[in-house]
């Protein structure tokens, strides 16, 4: 075993799939992870912005949390409002929501595979090529 691996090392991991807004740091001693940190590097305070506003404004503001999963955020905001108002949902309403969520999932799968994950696939193939 090389002597370098015995010492204590801090590893910073790149989180490029979340636009760099998350940092992971690991401390490795020998071959054991002894400590780990997860740092969210961005704060926007959506909860504070919603304080004092009309409850229905959450339907406009909450989906803007994320450009990828806006519909999921909207569904959560709607569910929260319905719980507060104790409003029953029409069966067809639930179906439309499920369809919207499914459409978003399909779109995200495509986006993830062909835009975000593309690099990783090439990197992976490269590693395979070098290894073989």
């Amino acid at each position, binding site marked *: 075993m090389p002597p370098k691996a015995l010492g204590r090392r801090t590893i910073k991991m790149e989180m490029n799939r979340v636009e760099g807004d998350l940092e992971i740091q690991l401390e490795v001693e020998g071959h054991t992870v002894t400590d780990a940190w997860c740092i969210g590097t*961005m704060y926007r305070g959506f909860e504070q912005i919603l304080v004092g506003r009309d409850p229905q404004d959450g339907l*406009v503001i909450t989906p803007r949390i994320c450009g990828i999963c806006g519909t999921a955020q909207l569904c959560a905001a709607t569910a929260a409002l319905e719980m507060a108002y104790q409003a029953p949902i029409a069966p067809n309403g639930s179906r439309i929501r499920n369809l919207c969520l499914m459409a978003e999932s399909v779109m995200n799968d495509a986006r993830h595979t062909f835009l975000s994950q593309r690099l990783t696939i090439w990197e992976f193939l490269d590693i395979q090529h070098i290894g073989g």
Partner: protein
Amino acid sequence: LEPPKVLAAIIARILADEQELTLLCVEGSIIHGPNGTGMFDTFDGKPKRDIIRALCHKADYVLAMGTCAAFGGIPAAPSNPTESSGLQFSHEQPGGLVAPQWRSKTGLPVVNLAGCPVDAATMIKTMGSILQGVPLDLDANNRPCIVRPCLSDTSPRKCGTAEKVGFSCYGCIGATFPVSKPLFRHVEHPEKGKPFDPNSRKTALHDGWRVSEDAA
């Protein structure tokens, strides 16, 4: 999507004048908090605000993509917990990350492509006209007049969608978005009580979303 290390290398090359920066597209509001340090939004331990400002000075054209980057948008809504602003505006007030009189290398202010989200055709059309050297027609808020769907259609100032859906427009291309009053306000349907006519509805929907080819 570039990994952060590759991105940091590109930024370093641009700041050292080793690489040209023609179009700088910024998305999202500029976070100055807490207490003006910018540490609510960091890249590699440094405030993203400072990196963006340095890049602005190196770019030929700076485009603010969306209402957040242009005017501050939702993160800058009262009570503005993160001390956010836009690139050259703080809501309707001139002055944000860069001063109101700031101009890019080519003499243009920050081009504000407002919208939440900004229309895809607007983005591509604006970038295309800039790269082809077509002069941009900017309004008082530095928005190009081809911003869809509202600004491009100057003849009917009201698109009529509000009456169709029963709620008023919440003005996402405006500098004051989101205003402090409730965003959902009921609008009376002009044809309330009339029998449903599928043909007229179809034409109306088609009219509301037509692409104005004259702006291309």
